[in-house]
């Protein structure tokens, strides 16, 4: 400590002497670099003022008393800046700590999502889900049973950040407790609604679409709780159709029933589920139209499902200069045989 103070004193003295001698830009540049060193050594503004004053007193002869005394005022004023500087440092440390806690939480959240790929010859599946911040308010699900029924879901918590993320994990746990309803979309949503209604704040809602592909009759059965409608692509007619479905968002009212809908899937047909983070992407200040999303899917539809969702995400992310405003989830399930 004493040593560094001494060497700082020497360095500062040389610098100031040089400058007073030739007033060169070079010396000023040196001072700028030196300020970084001082900050690294945790020197506060008031210490810097004091250093300047003592060096100056040594090299300038016959300083008037007024000049010397004027530094008292400067020093006193600098104490406040020094405190603000210290506070800034401690807040920065705190911020780092919060950030790393969030990173851990985000990793935990990720582990709630399915990780194994669907390895069935009957379907081709792809999903991408990217949070706008660290934690996501979107949830997706996919799973298949021994009869090769493939269930898929996308849910979107209205709200952002940590509270949304916490509600998202609730959906996951609730889903786990309802395996019998996997082939009854409406009943599944009805049960989820009861859990959500009981457990989340009045001002939070969740929208969700759940459906499953039944390989015995080649149909996609689904139900919706106020969720952004998905699409189905019919290869034969080369047309996209909305997966419309009526149903109240989860968490508003205790006893709600949800209607089951179904749609035929021929070979090559695929369903698309999404969260409103996809449709609320803003390109050139305007919300993207569903037609535009359809066009993008159309452009990539020859690719495997995972490629399609990855490409669309990349394109939309890029169009928004790599800044997501909302959590983004896009899922595609295609009938292969």
């Amino acid at each position: 400590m004493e040593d560094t103070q001494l060497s700082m004193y020497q360095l500062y003295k040389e610098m100031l002497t040089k400058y007073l001698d030739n007033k060169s830009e070079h010396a000023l540049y040196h001072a700028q670099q030196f300020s970084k060193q001082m900050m690294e050594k945790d020197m506060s503004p008031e210490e810097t003022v004091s250093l300047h004053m003592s060096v100056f007193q040594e090299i300038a002869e016959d300083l008037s008393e007024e000049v010397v005394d004027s530094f008292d005022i400067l020093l006193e004023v600098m104490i406040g800046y020094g405190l603000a500087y210290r506070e800034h440092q401690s807040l920065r440390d705190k911020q780092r700590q919060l950030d790393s806690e969030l990173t851990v939480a985000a990793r935990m959240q990720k582990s709630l999502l399915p990780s194994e790929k669907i390895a069935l010859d009957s379907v081709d599946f792809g999903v991408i889900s990217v949070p706008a911040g660290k934690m996501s308010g979107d949830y997706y699900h996919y799973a298949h049973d021994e009869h090769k029924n493939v269930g898929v879901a996308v849910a979107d918590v209205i709200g952002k950040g940590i509270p949304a993320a916490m509600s998202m994990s609730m959906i996951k746990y609730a889903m786990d407790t309802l395996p019998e309803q996997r082939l009854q979309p409406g009943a599944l949503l009805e049960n989820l609604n009861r859990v959500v209604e009981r457990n989340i704040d009045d001002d939070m809602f969740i929208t969700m679409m759940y459906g499953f592909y039944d390989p015995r009759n080649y149909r996609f059965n689904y139900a919706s709780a106020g969720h952004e409608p998905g699409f189905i692509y019919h290869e034969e007619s080369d047309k996209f159709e909305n997966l419309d479905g009526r149903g109240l968002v989860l968490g508003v009212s205790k006893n709600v029933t949800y209607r089951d809908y179904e749609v035929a899937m021929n070979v090559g047909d695929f369903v698309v589920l999404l969260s409103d983070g996809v449709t609320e992407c803003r390109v050139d200040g305007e919300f993207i139209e569903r037609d535009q999303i359809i066009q993008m899917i159309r452009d990539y539809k020859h690719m495997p499902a995972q490629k399609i969702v990855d490409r669309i995400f990349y394109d939309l992310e890029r169009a928004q200069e790599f800044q997501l405003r909302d959590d983004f989830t896009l899922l595609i399930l295609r009938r292969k045989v």
Partner: protein
Amino acid sequence: MQVQTHVDIHSEWGIVAARQAGRKLAREIGFGSVDQARITTAISELARNIYLYANKGQIQIEEATSAGKRGIKIIATDQGPGIKEIRRVMEDGFTTSGGLGAGLPGVKRLMDDFDIDSELKVGTTITAIKWLR
């Protein structure tokens, strides 16, 4: 010889008097000008809090010694309303001045040792010491 000064705080004059007494003793003990300014700022903040929140109280300033170290000890006492949420008050950014680094967390930073003892409706005693290096 133990030097000890008491200053009553019931107006801004008292705050200035406490600063003056603190600076004088700090200088006598051997603190440099930067530390003198820091100690004075700490006294200011404590005295101002007494004046603002408890109306009146006392600042006691004395020399401190411990294990061969010398320092200055400030004790701010009042019989005011007490501090409700001490833990929050000690968080950065909580002060009404809106996080300019001052207030009680600032005092803690300016000094080496810091202790608050406060009871609602009874009063507050804050002790802070800075050691000479």
